[in-house]
């Protein structure tokens, strides 16, 4: 193991902080040009949309004064956005995979391929699965979601999870679901089960149903796509999705609201609903989700025992200052989606706040975040939803700006190009 102690600068920070506080009472003018350079060691857990962005922006905005260690269990970043195009056969896994190399070589982020198994918030250390601990001044958890397998009991084992796929974390599951669709006979049924909101990527399941329908229409036109939605209606871009299904996939896509999954018959590829059973040839179950387990293990306050409660000015846990949480894992502000784009925006709020706090300044009192989400309804046809969220000092959380945001006027080809351009730019914004 490399020497991890060199990254523990907490004692140094304490000394420097005390000195600057003492000095400030003597000479305010000396501070007027700006606070001292932010220093310290930040450990980031999770190399997805939130974790990579905060790692890069901490380095960039602190003028490399803050040391950053990113712990990620996968060798490369694999994007969930655009992964439905892999499921549909329009893209390969390589097209949505980006190396962590740029974070290392360009930004000087220390990237450790490992998993954090425990957090000691009193000692400010994390334990790594492969052994050893890391000390931190501040911790950023961007752990994404874990699945609540107890709510789909038959899938609560690795063997079943290898047969009835979620493909809701991009990687091997994405490729495996593609394979199942390729192996499906013409005339087969692809059924997708959607959990009750909130879950990761609200429009994602409807996008998947659409592009799988596009693939089947072209290659296996006797097949069907059955959407089993636990929600009472399509929860994102409803009119645009329903119009696409009606215009493009009539007789192929069938939408069933209020279809909560209670369990699965794995061998029979059958979805068990409250009052019905639905047999499929390819059954794709997106299970209910909660924060990545590490946040719960760390003792952070959860809301509804699912999502982390945070302070929106700093993205810090409300019961554990010094631990910042990003992305899908947090209890969302009103109308705020769990999206990669939003996790990237959370990360920038956190990076700015951490740098301020590490140099003795208050966090920005008026953060703004925004979301853009493109969904493919066919290989070259896209619809978007956008929103802007401004911090409301009275409500102590970001609120959607009235009159801003909205959806595409109609599905269109131009936004199919823009969506792929969005991916290139956000991946670069995170990783290079």
């Amino acid at each position: 193991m490399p020497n991890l102690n060199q990254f523990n600068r907490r004692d140094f920070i304490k000394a420097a902080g005390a000195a600057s506080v003492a000095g400030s009472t003597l000479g305010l003018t000396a501070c007027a040009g700006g606070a001292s350079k932010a220093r310290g060691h930040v450990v980031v857990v999770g190399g997805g949309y939130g974790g990579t962005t905060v790692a890069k922006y901490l380095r960039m905005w602190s003028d490399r004064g803050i040391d950053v260690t990113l712990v990620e269990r996968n060798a490369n970043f694999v994007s969930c956005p655009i992964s439905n195009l892999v499921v549909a056969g329009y893209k390969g896994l390589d097209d949505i995979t980006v190396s962590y190399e740029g974070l290392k070589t360009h930004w000087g982020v220390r990237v450790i391929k490992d998993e954090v198994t425990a957090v000691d918030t009193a000692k400010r250390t994390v334990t790594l699965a492969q052994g050893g601990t890391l000390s931190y001044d501040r911790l950023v958890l961007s752990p994404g979601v874990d699945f609540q397998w107890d709510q789909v009991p038959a899938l609560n084992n690795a063997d079943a999870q290898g047969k009835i796929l979620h493909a809701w974390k991009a990687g091997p599951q994405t490729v495996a679901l593609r394979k199942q669709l390729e192996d499906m006979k013409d005339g087969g049924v692809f059924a997708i089960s959607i959990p009750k909101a909130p879950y990761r990527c609200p429009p994602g399941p409807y996008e998947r149903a659409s592009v799988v329908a596009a693939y089947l229409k072209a290659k296996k036109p006797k097949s069907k796509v059955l959407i089993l939605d636990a929600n009472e209606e399509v929860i994102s871009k409803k009119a645009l999705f329903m119009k696409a299904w009606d215009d493009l996939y009539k007789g192929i896509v069938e939408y069933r609201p209020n279809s909560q999954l209670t369990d699965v018959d794995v061998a029979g590829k059958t979805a068990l609903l409250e009052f019905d059973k639905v047999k499929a040839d390819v059954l794709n179950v997106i299970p209910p989700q909660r924060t990545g387990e590490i946040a719960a293990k760390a003792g952070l306050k959860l809301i509804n025992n699912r999502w982390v409660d945070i302070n929106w000015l700093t993205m810090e846990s409300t019961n554990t200052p010094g631990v910042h949480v990003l992305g899908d894992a947090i209890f969302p502000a009103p109308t705020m989606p769990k999206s990669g784009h939003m996790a990237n925006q959370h990360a920038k709020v956190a990076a700015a706040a951490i740098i301020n706090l590490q140099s003795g300044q208050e966090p920005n009192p008026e953060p703004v975040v925004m979301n853009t989400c493109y969904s493919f309804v066919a290989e070259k046809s896209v619809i978007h939803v956008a929103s802007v969220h401004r911090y409301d000092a009275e409500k102590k959380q970001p609120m959607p700006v009235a009159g801003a945001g909205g959806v595409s006027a109609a599905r269109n080809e131009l936004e199919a190009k823009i969506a792929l351009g969005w991916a290139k730019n956000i991946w670069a914004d995170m990783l290079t």
Partner: protein
Amino acid sequence: MIRSSHRRALALIAAAALAGASGSALAKDPNLGRNLAATCANCHGTNGQAVPGSGLDALAGTPRDKLLQKLNDFKTGVKPATIMHQISKGYTDEQLGLIADYFAAQK
């Protein structure tokens, strides 16, 4: 150890100094423009440097007045757009000005 009360006291002193200088009662974060501009980076690249060939506009180095005019045209609906008419409405005129300042200063 930097106690939060000390931190707050420091911030108040700094805020008072700033208010004296600018006449504003609200303590602005000195990096507000940078932070706001970063909300654009997902599509337009870090510091406005969009990936070449991505088809999205690079904003770095755009003259302030030109960019602000464009943003205002999106906001008022004068200039047609796929999405920017919806996004620009989420920012105040002052915020758009800070964003234009920031990108104009990027190389």
